[in-house]
């Protein structure tokens, strides 16, 4: 990384910097991903090209002849965000070699959980292995929300989606959420981090750090979807906070494989009594409503158990790093 300095993104900095993800898009009220996109674009450091996978945020922001993007932006397909970044990176390098590129340009590839955990994973793994210089931002709303709330590899256990409906026999998704960041860390990337928009300063700092890396960087951002989660649009930020407090979505960063908890998660590690039960995170969400019945109570216990196990594993990894 070019520098280890901490960036001081203040509310004023953010307010003063012109938006690069503009208003007028067609996202729903309370959309987590739209807030995430607007914020991460505040952390850019100069000329930037954005490439995006097919998904909610691509669809709401680029309905021809309108656009919400004040930066050069490319969409090609669902599974191609990282492959696009490869091509842009290669072109910029070739054009620079010929003296046709005037200044350094950052590349941000953006995809949802479908375009990252599932259909886009191969292209992402390939682009990272080849060492292209780009930041991949995963906005994780835990399902295929654009196509109508189907389950993805990022959907958590117990969630009712249109392809894992809470039925009389099967109570929502049975499988666990794929540990995508562990997969990305296994690529021995220079920078991997998780963030939620509630802790916006932390998130912006991580975006900037990812851009500073000369090579691939990966940022996993938690992004509630009121429509898909059956949550109150006013509570998107509340869930972005509860996910961290319940350790359902701890936030951390790993620089050259050395993992450190970010402050909100570190606080819980130091004072375990502050760790909230997963129940407080789950109970207000319509997608988990069926779990709060006597016959499904064991699932909530299982989610708690898996969350605890994953949290302990994470703590061990942070200590050993």
């Amino acid at each position, binding site marked *: 990384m070019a520098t280890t300095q901490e960036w001081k993104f203040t509310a004023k900095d953010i307010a003063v910097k012109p938006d690069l993800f503009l208003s007028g898009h067609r996202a729903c009220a309370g959309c987590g991903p739209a807030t995430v996109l607007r914020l991460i674009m505040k952390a850019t450091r100069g*000329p*930037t*090209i954005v*490439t995006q996978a097919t998904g909610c945020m*691509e*669809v709401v922001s*680029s*309905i*021809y*002849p309108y*656009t919400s*993007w*004040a*930066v*050069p*932006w*490319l*969409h*090609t*397909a669902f*599974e*191609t965000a*990282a*492959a*696009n*970044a*490869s*091509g*842009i990176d*290669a*072109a*910029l*390098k*070739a*054009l620079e*070699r*010929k003296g*046709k590129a005037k200044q350094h*340009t950052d590349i941000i590839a953006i995809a949802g959980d479908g375009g990252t955990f599932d259909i886009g994973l*191969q*292209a992402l*793994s*390939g*682009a990272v*292995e*080849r060492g292209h210089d780009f930041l991949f931002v995963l906005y994780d709303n835990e399902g295929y929300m654009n196509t109508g709330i189907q389950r993805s590899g990022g959907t958590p256990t117990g969630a009712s989606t249109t392809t894992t409906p809470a039925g009389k026999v099967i109570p929502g998704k049975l499988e666990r959420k794929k540990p995508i960041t562990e997969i990305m860390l296994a690529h021995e990337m220079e920078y991997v981090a998780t963030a939620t928009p509630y802790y916006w300063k932390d998130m912006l700092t991580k975006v900037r750090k990812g851009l500073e890396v000369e090579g691939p960087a990966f940022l996993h951002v938690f992004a509630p979807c009121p429509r898909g989660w059956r949550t109150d649009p006013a509570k998107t930020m509340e869930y972005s906070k509860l996910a961290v407090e319940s350790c359902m979505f701890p936030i951390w960063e790993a620089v050259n494989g050395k993992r450190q908890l970010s402050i909100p998660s570190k606080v819980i590690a130091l004072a375990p009594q502050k760790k909230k039960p997963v129940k407080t995170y789950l109970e207000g969400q319509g997608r988990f409503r069926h779990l709060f019945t006597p016959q499904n109570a064991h699932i909530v216990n299982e989610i708690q158990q898996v969350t605890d196990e994953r949290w302990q594993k994470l703590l061990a990894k942070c200590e050993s790093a």
Partner: protein
Amino acid sequence: MQKTTKQQIMGLNGDEAVAYAVKQSDVDVVAAYPITPQTIIVEKYSEYVANGEVKTEFVCTESEHSAMAATLAASATGARTFTASASAGLALMHEMLTVASGSRAPIVMAVANRALSSPLNIHGDQSDSMAERDSGWIHIYVENAQEAYDSIIQAFKIAEDTGISLPVMVGLDGFTLSHTLERVDVLEDQTVQTFLGERKIPLVLTHEGKTVPYKLDPENPMTMGPIALQNYYFEFKRQQDEAMRLALNKIQEVNSEYAALSGRSYGNGLIDQYKLDAAEIAVVCVGSTAGTLKVVIDGLRQEGIKAGLLRLRTFRPLPVEELRNALKNTKAIAVMDKSMSFGGHGGAVFHEVRHALYDVQTQPPVVNYIYGLGGRDTNPVVFRTIFDDLLRIVRTGRVEKQITYFGVRD
């Protein structure tokens, strides 16, 4: 013939001829994935990169799907781009082929034509690219390694014409051309670079009334690859089709311009005729089969039989007028297809040629021969029987069999 530029004789197979043409075309980005029988192209190009003979950024992607996505993204960034594929690889690219043409990315791709699975077969036929006939790419099919070399250079000129701005695939028959050593006359590097010039980026009008280059440019931010719904999508597609029509002229123009430089032309660039003037019977084919058919026709002509050949060099856009004019005075026509359209009435080339001739007053009978699938060998002796069939049709005025599966166990 007018004086042409200095050239050098090389011994190259079709794949090497393609790689050499790409090297001379000063390509910025090559993104590709290996697949038989295209492999020699990417291997050869890797050598050029490893030895510092090119300035190209070479991306060895993890799949053909990503190869096309990366090539497209590089093209959108303003780079001159090339890739190569075949068979299953081209099929895996399918989604991205339509995205590339819809994005009006002037990518050049060599396709070393090969059979599609299943059963798995690595040998030559044209099932792969014929399945992509509606993907919005210009399709050029070559007869030999020399034409493969020449056509790749021409393809950049056609694709990058700002009035066309469409991707071009150049098909060369797997193994028959890709792996067979031939004499190839090559131009000097400087000659190719002068012929092509630097890639010109089309200019487009913004909503603010500014004219800006159609590329990812931080100074002129543009949204590329948007969603267009019921109110605009159709217009995008209509414009693509219009560009295809304009390409009919451009391909001929580039063929002539290149001929003046090299002394080599391929018919008018769209169709290549052999002894077709005053021919009574004609065969229409695509690709390297033309070479074999010419030998057969030479023999027939010695016997006094008026046989001719039409090689369809450009399959998309389809040169309908040229097909009509060239074939209207023949009395029977055989169309050769090296791929199947399962459940259709004959192969893809047959559909197109017969369709084009429907409005010709003479309406000569047109029959179809599906041949050579999975690399099955076809030679002059067996091809001779096709002409016998045509002569019988002319003599009796009757078509007994419209579609023949040639050289297959029934």
